[in-house]
């Protein structure tokens, strides 16, 4: 006997993500899900963005890592409210984890919550966290072919930040090829080139990010 089901496999996560979105917005926060490979500069970028956040907006951070509080310690040292999630080997964040972390964060909006997902270009994209925006960070040392090798995460991005642009000439990174690769999988995402180390390119990014409704 065959039974039709036609139900999302991740229906439970999707329902929790929808609840997250309601909770985030009720407290006056917009939420950015930051995804990238390990070492691309997610934490550095979040700290740079917080440096440029307009007056009147409260930044909060949810840090996801397999282990340690290294990143949360950096954020906390900058005087920003942060909660660390350790997945103990888990390769992505899920909506339920994020909700528990957000409840532990004090502070009300208007503001922006940056969720730093687990460093991974595959798994995090499957899981809606209730975010308003998906920001994918790529970095120059990883190579210009990443959008073609990991198309699904680049396809899901609302904004793509190419970090460590100051290293491009040293590692023969083909910027035009990177852009072409992104456009092969994603027609709509904004692309910004930045260096968190030198500060180059951050102003256009922050102007766009914090003016987007």
């Amino acid at each position, binding site marked *: 006997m065959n039974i039709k*089901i036609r139900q*999302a496999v991740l229906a439970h996560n999707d329902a929790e993500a929808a609840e997250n979105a309601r909770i985030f917005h009720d407290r006056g926060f917009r939420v950015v899900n930051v995804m990238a490979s390990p070492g691309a500069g997610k934490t550095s970028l979040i700290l740079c963005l917080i440096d440029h956040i307009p007056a009147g907006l409260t930044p909060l951070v949810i840090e996801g890592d397999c282990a340690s509080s290294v990143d949360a310690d950096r954020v906390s040292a900058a005087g920003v409210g942060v909660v660390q999630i350790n997945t103990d080997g888990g390769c992505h964040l899920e909506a339920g984890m994020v909700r528990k972390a957000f409840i532990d964060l004090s502070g009300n909006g208007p503001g922006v919550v940056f969720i730093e997902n687990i460093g991974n270009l595959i798994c995090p994209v499957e899981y809606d966290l209730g975010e308003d925006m998906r920001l994918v960070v790529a970095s120059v040392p990883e190579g210009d072919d990443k959008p073609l090798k990991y198309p699904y995460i680049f396809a899901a991005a609302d904004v793509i930040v190419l970090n460590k642009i100051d290293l491009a000439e040293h590692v023969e990174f083909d910027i035009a090829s990177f852009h072409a690769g992104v456009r092969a999988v994603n027609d709509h995402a904004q692309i910004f080139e930045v260096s968190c180390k030198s500060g180059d390119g951050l102003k256009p990014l922050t102007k766009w990010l914090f003016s987007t409704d």
Partner: protein
Amino acid sequence: MHEASIAHGILRGALAALPDGKKITRITIVAGAQVSVVLESLDLYFQELSRGSLAEGALLDLQQRAGKLVCKSCGQIHEHVRGTPVSMICKTCGGANRLDITNELFLESMEVEDLQDGGAK
């Protein structure tokens, strides 16, 4: 290893839809081209998680949809086979391709049979 979480979602959804007096022998899952799932890994986790339940031993049938490469110039559509490089150049006219992909992941259906000796969900 996100297959563990997906396997849990499959088990949860299938058992919730299971009528009384039946057990599950096969589950069909449909995955869009954007979804990254390795069937062998998914099956490993599913068999472990379903042990002792009315889905124990059920076969997983994963139907992964292909992506489409759509030429931005001539509109010609070519299939993109998962795991192969994304071709940025249209084979027909040499124009620039766009990868058209979907991220749906759902339980399509399941085969069930009568329980011989009762049992709990």
